């Protein structure tokens, strides 16, 4: 065991893993995090705490991770390269490990200009860092854990037991390079991978076939990302505006039909679409589960965490397995 984290144990035991995302609030209200933690409890093996997603200032991922640990949940602390240099990153990683955090997802992070893309003012004038990129960050964490060395070369006595993750955009452009880039993440030391949201199952299957051929699925655990859709408009937006996400027209049509069935009743239209969104999510989980090399799912219900337990249940993934440390290391 590299970290002994629950997520690592579940994967090592050959179980189909489930992770779910939890977004911290834009203020210091820890109760919001605790409330979300209570909603999500027992429906996943570990919970991703986003790190200022879309560059919007939120409660830190480390603090939020510690809060959900108080509720008995295991965090996957996300760490972007946007806001910290290698000094701050390593300091925070060591601190996180000392606080008991065992999983870390290394990502580049959206550019700060995204913080003002929606209705928020954000901080588009902020200076970004990007001292290291996400692949270099993976290598740094591996170096701390396996070699007991800081990036600069100084030895450390107590090594952080971390399960190191990375993101993958399988359907990102340029398509033919994405498997190669995943190979680089694995070579750098990524123990697990969480993908960008998958809707186009055929395309995803094709990309997975390539990485299986490369043998990458045996060197890392790929968790397919599923973003729970709430409406036809959301699916359409993701298809047109979110990089690396393509949504088949049939799914958008399904959502629109659900909306139209409600006629002029706006409340019913919303409920219909939400129900259809949950149905689509359950189907997507079942479909990715059949694809060779997929070792689990990563569910992102953005500001809609309350529907996750039902989704996991309907997908037949409850109860979550309990894997003891001994079993996990076997």
């Amino acid at each position, binding site marked *: 065991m590299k970290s002994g984290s629950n997520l690592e144990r579940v994967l090592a035991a050959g179980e189909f893993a489930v992770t779910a995302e939890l977004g911290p609030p834009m203020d210091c209200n820890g109760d919001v995090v605790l409330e979300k933690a209570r909603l999500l409890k027992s429906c996943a093996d570990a919970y991703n705490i986003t790190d200022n997603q879309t560059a919007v200032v939120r409660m830190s991922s480390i603090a939020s991770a510690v809060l959900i640990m108080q509720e008995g949940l295991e965090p996957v602390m996300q760490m972007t390269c946007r806001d910290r240099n290698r000094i701050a990153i390593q300091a925070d990683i060591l601190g996180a490990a000392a606080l008991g955090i065992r999983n870390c997802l290394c990502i580049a992070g959206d*550019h700060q200009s995204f913080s003002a893309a929606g209705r928020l003012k954000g901080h588009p004038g902020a200076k970004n860092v990007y001292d290291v990129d996400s692949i*270099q960050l993976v290598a740094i964490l591996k170096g701390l854990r396996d070699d007991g060395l800081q990036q600069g070369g100084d030895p450390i006595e107590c090594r952080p037991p971390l399960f190191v993750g990375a993101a993958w955009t399988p359907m990102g452009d340029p398509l033919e390079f994405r498997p190669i880039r995943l190979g680089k993440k694995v070579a750098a030391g990524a123990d697990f991978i969480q993908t960008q949201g998958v809707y186009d199952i055929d395309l995803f299957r094709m990309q997975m076939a390539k990485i299986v051929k490369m043998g990458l699925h045996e060197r890392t655990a790929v968790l397919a990302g599923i973003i729970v859709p709430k409406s036809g408009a959301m699916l359409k937006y993701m298809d047109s505006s979110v990089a690396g996400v393509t949504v088949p027209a049939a799914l958008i049509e399904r959502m629109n039909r659900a909306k139209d069935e409600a006629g002029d009743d706006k409340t019913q239209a919303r409920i219909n679409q939400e129900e259809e969104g949950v149905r689509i999510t359950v189907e997507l989980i079942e479909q990715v589960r059949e694809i060779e090399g997929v070792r689990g799912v990563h569910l992102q219900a953005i500001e809609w965490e309350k529907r996750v337990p039902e989704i996991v249940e309907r997908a037949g993934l409850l109860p979550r397995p309990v894997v003891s440390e001994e079993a996990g290391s076997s």
Partner: protein
Amino acid sequence: MIVAEQKPFGQVKEFVEGYRKIMVAGCGACVTVCLVGGEAEVKVLASGLRIAHLQEGKATEVLEACVTRQCEPEFNDPLVERIREEGVEAVISLACGVGVNLLAEALEDVPVFPGVNTTFFGGVKEAGTWLELCAGCGECILHLTGGICPVARCAKSIMNGPCGGTNDGKCELGGETACAWALIIERMSRLGTLGQLETVQPARDWSTGHYGGPRRMTVEAVQAVAKEE
């Protein structure tokens, strides 16, 4: 070349508020090429100031000058002499920041104001459009990336791209900006060197760039000759 853009007229006018004898000093190098700080732009800015001051009933004198290169003191020396002789009270330099620094250094008691915003090291993309192509990071890695610079041209300066944000060959920032890594992959595929990108590039040493502190470059042979002279 160094690319710059003109500062708003109102801002420049405010810089020299209260001075009676003002000089607008252009530069014949990069800023002439990118049409913001050469002889022609000196005339336009000086005329604009004269008209504005006339309308406000202010008695000022606006002189014009343009030197070959403001980034070399030997070209600035005659200009500095003229500024002193004519009793110029304030200078607006239309050179890049390098020129402003050197003029300010040479003119101990005369304020020098920037007339342009120095933006980047770039080249002409098409008539009237310049692109940032180099970041001056102090350790060129273009041999690893098919001659296309990810430090300058990737919004995240990543060494193992592309990130997940690239979309149809464009940067996640949107607009016209190409994804540097999409360009790199396309070019290295054509060159048959794509396999080189499979190597993980380790965290780089940024101390060769500005992060290592203000830089200095010396050529000993030139120093030796200069000493002899």
